[in-house]
């Protein structure tokens, strides 16, 4: 084992680095800025520049690095005679992310951090890694970096030098932290997250798609519900786009807005767009063929208020993207919306569903009034348009047996009140389940009914201490209809026991009245103190 590890390290160290040569000659603003600003500290090497040329990171990762140089090491980016509007940070990050980024496959499983989906409990990392690396920040933050072993070693020294309390705090003082970090974790992450990889080499050789054109979007906007829209993407220059969006929520409310985006590393889409008066940020990944975008939209300044997004490039060929709502009750009539491309043919549904009327149909969206027959069997039904099928997305159900609150564990943070850090809301939604024919929970025939709109929300004390301390009264406000929790103001509260701040340990209850019965789901909400340090990757 030791020989293999050593061999692996030697292989990595002797593998020619892929981009360094281009840094010397690249004509981009980013490369020029690196050459004119970084050489004061970073030394030219055979492969490029010390430190810089031996790491690969996401756009956010590089942004944090350059910002650390600015904030801690007093870098002032000198733009020279470059005619650019920004401070130069963007150009540097763009160059580095494009040339020393991560391949799409290398971000899989940890994209939630890029997408700012922070109410995620990481369970995929083993205990030792989690204890050493993920007790102060997310494990994903590490997993979204690639370094040579020497660079991982430097990272250990940086951690202890910059944050000396690392080896004194809990899970630091109970072990030889520095020795373990150097001798155990460095070999481990060097192997798991190596600087050179076939995936990255291959991605570099892959021709990157242009992403301009018309895109079909679908999602579930917090507080608004399901929507469908088209997003027109016009290329201003390579990797820079203007956006305009147009569409409707399920309730008929129109969506209209504009925005812009930048694509890093050939697939990492970062954009801003307005849905009416809602300002959204976009973190998406383009597929290698340039036909789909997947990721998350979230509100500017309130990252936890967001939605998963899948977008499909418009195409004459019939493709199905989504259907909503995702459930029809037996015997009931409702309008369903199907989104996709090339929707010119008629919709084909199973015999258990009657199509009453096609209310509207375009190439990208059709709204159909349907009735699930009284004798329809409960279960998922296929939707077909032309040759295209959508499976396991629409369920005929009998009743909502259970509600699942998502996220199951949300965190909200007090803020404002004269401080520098705003409040952090969190948003809960309820996913419905029909237990299926057997009526038993957690069996194979359970039906996921998607988001249920008509639930009411409340928060209750999670335990006796929370009850005694009146956490419900002090910690903030739950919007009973949208599930959005807004925390209270920051700072010691003289009205509270021990003048404590407005933290709270709460349960979140979603309730639905179904056939006269009350169905409820439960989640957890921790209302806690501010994050004073808010880097792009937490």
């Amino acid at each position, binding site marked *: 084992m030791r020989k293999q590890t050593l061999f692996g390290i030697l292989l990595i160290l002797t593998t020619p680095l892929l981009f360094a040569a281009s840094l010397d000659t690249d004509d981009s603003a980013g490369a020029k800025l690196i050459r004119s600003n970084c050489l*004061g*500290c*970073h*030394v030219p090497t055979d492969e490029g520049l*010390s*430190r810089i040329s031996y790491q690969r990171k996401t756009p956010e990762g590089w942004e944090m690095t350059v910002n650390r140089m600015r904030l801690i090491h007093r870098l002032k980016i000198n733009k020279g005679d470059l005619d650019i509007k920004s401070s130069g940070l963007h150009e540097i990050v763009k160059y580095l992310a494009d040339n020393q980024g991560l391949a799409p496959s290398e971000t899989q499983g940890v994209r939630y951090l890029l997408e700012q989906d922070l109410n995620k409990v990481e369970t995929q990392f083993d*205990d*030792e890694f989690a*204890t050493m690396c993920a007790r102060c920040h997310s494990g994903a933050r590490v997993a979204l970096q690639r370094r040579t072993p020497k660079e991982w070693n*430097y990272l*250990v*020294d*940086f951690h*202890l*030098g*910059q944050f*000396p*309390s690392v*080896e*004194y705090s*809990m*899970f*630091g*003082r*109970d072990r*030889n*932290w*520095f020795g373990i970090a150097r001798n155990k974790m460095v070999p481990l992450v060097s192997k798991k997250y190596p600087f050179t990889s076939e995936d990255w080499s291959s991605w570099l050789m892959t021709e990157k798609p242009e992403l301009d054109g018309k895109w079909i979007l679908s999602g579930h906007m917090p507080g608004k519900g399901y929507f469908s829209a088209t997003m027109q993407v016009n290329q201003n220059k390579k990797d820079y786009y203007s956006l305009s969006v147009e569409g409707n929520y399920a309730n008929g409310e129109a969506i209209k807005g504009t925005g812009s985006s930048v694509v890093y590393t050939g697939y990492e889409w970062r954009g801003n767009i307005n849905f009416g008066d809602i300002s959204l940020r976009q973190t998406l990944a383009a597929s290698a063929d340039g036909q789909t975008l997947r990721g998350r939209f979230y509100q500017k300044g309130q990252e936890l208020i967001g939605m998963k997004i899948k977008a499909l490039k418009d195409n004459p060929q019939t493709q199905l993207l989504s259907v909503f709502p995702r459930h029809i009750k037996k015997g009931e009539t409702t309008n369903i919306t199907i989104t996709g491309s090339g929707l010119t043919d008629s919709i084909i549904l199973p015999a258990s569903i009657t199509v009453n009327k096609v209310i509207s149909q375009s190439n990208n969206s059709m709204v159909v009034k349907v009735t699930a027959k009284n004798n329809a069997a409960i279960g998922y039904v296929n939707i077909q348009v032309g040759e295209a099928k959508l499976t396991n997305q629409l369920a005929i159900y009998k009743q909502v047996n259970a509600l699942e609150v998502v996220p199951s564990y949300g965190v909200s943070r007090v803020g404002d009140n004269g401080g520098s850090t705003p409040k952090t809301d969190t948003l809960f939604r309820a996913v419905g389940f029909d237990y299926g024919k057997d009526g038993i929970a957690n069996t194979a025939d359970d039906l996921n009914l998607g988001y249920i709109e008509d639930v009411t929300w409340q928060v209750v004390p999670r335990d006796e201490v929370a009850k005694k301390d009146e956490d419900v009264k002090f910690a903030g406000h739950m919007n009973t209809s949208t599930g959005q929790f807004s925390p209270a103001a920051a700072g010691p509260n003289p009205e509270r026991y*021990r*003048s*404590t701040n407005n933290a709270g340990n709460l349960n979140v209850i979603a309730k639905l009245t179904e056939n006269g019965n009350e169905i409820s789901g439960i989640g957890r909400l921790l209302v806690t103190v501010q994050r004073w340090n808010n880097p792009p990757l937490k």
Partner: protein
Amino acid sequence: MNRNFYKTLFLSSIVMLLSACQGSNSEEKITTTITTSGSDKEYLITVTRPNTTLHLVDLQTNKVIRQCDLPAGPGPGTLVMSPDNSIVYILTNHFSDIYGVNIDNCDVVFSTQQSTGNIRVKSIASIAISPDGKEIYTHQNRVKIMNDHYEMLPPQIAAFNTSAGLNVEASRTFDAPRQVTIMDALESGELIIGGQDIFLMDIHSGKYDVILPSLNDKQPGYSGKDVLSVWQMGKINNEFYRMYSRAKFNGKDGDLANAEYLFGHETVNLETGKAEAKDFGPVETVLFTSIRRPGQLNRVYATLNDLKEYDSTTQKLIRSIDLPYTYYCINFSHNGSKIYLSGALDSIAVYDPDTFEKLAHIKLTGDGSMSTSIIFKRQG
């Protein structure tokens, strides 16, 4: 090393703790005789931020009688007093710099900026003074900041001559263990170093050995001890003191799921060098500091959000009250008749150790979070 281990370790470690109390007038017997000079007056000294303000409190009147604003960056103030109680040495500016201040006139008579050149030094509450007052010792966590990378250097003990004035450099250094916090010196001069275990260093040769295993205590039936002590408090019992928590296994060793958790204290008698560890009570809530009552050393008082009294002989909780808010630091008057709570927010609270009646509330200007308080006596 499963999840259960971490869960239980968390429970153990959250109870982190502690403080060192060093005293001047106690003996090792459970009951000691309090000897005081009738003309001595008792004072408390502590530091608040953001301005690194030294507060000298007359404990006869519970009034702040002197404030000194120091030319120092903010940070927890870890204090040690000169043997004649005329100069207080403050480790501050984010555990980096030391200032010696004459408490009669606020004059800064000593200073050192431990970080020099491209080497940055942090001493995590680790400062001690020699018994003759001629030297200050710190434990230095050092990092060399190169042009494009950081390089951790081995930690060391540094000695500074207190008579050298301002901007003093270390007169000598020795290799030291990592993860050290509070320290003190025996009356014979050796340096007590509180790290994963408690070490004793010959301050002339730099040789050191373990005198009391702590994290590495292998006592059957128990886990190692978990200690986080960043408070040195009051020369009351003439001992180096820090609180620990540990698991007592009820089944197989290592079976944390069925273990019970105990608080205890480690002590080193500054006169004799005798080092001991003793459990004093069950872990029921988080406590940051504790102290033995002068004159009744088996009575242990502890604080954070509560004020608690334990009998270490029976290992039972005797008394407990909720506090109106958090205090990190607990201290005693020399005769054991008053408890002083400090080290958080902007006040010092005085309690009767027999009744837990609140006797006084001393308001400070500024936040004393994580700062030490020292109680001392002198004439005038």
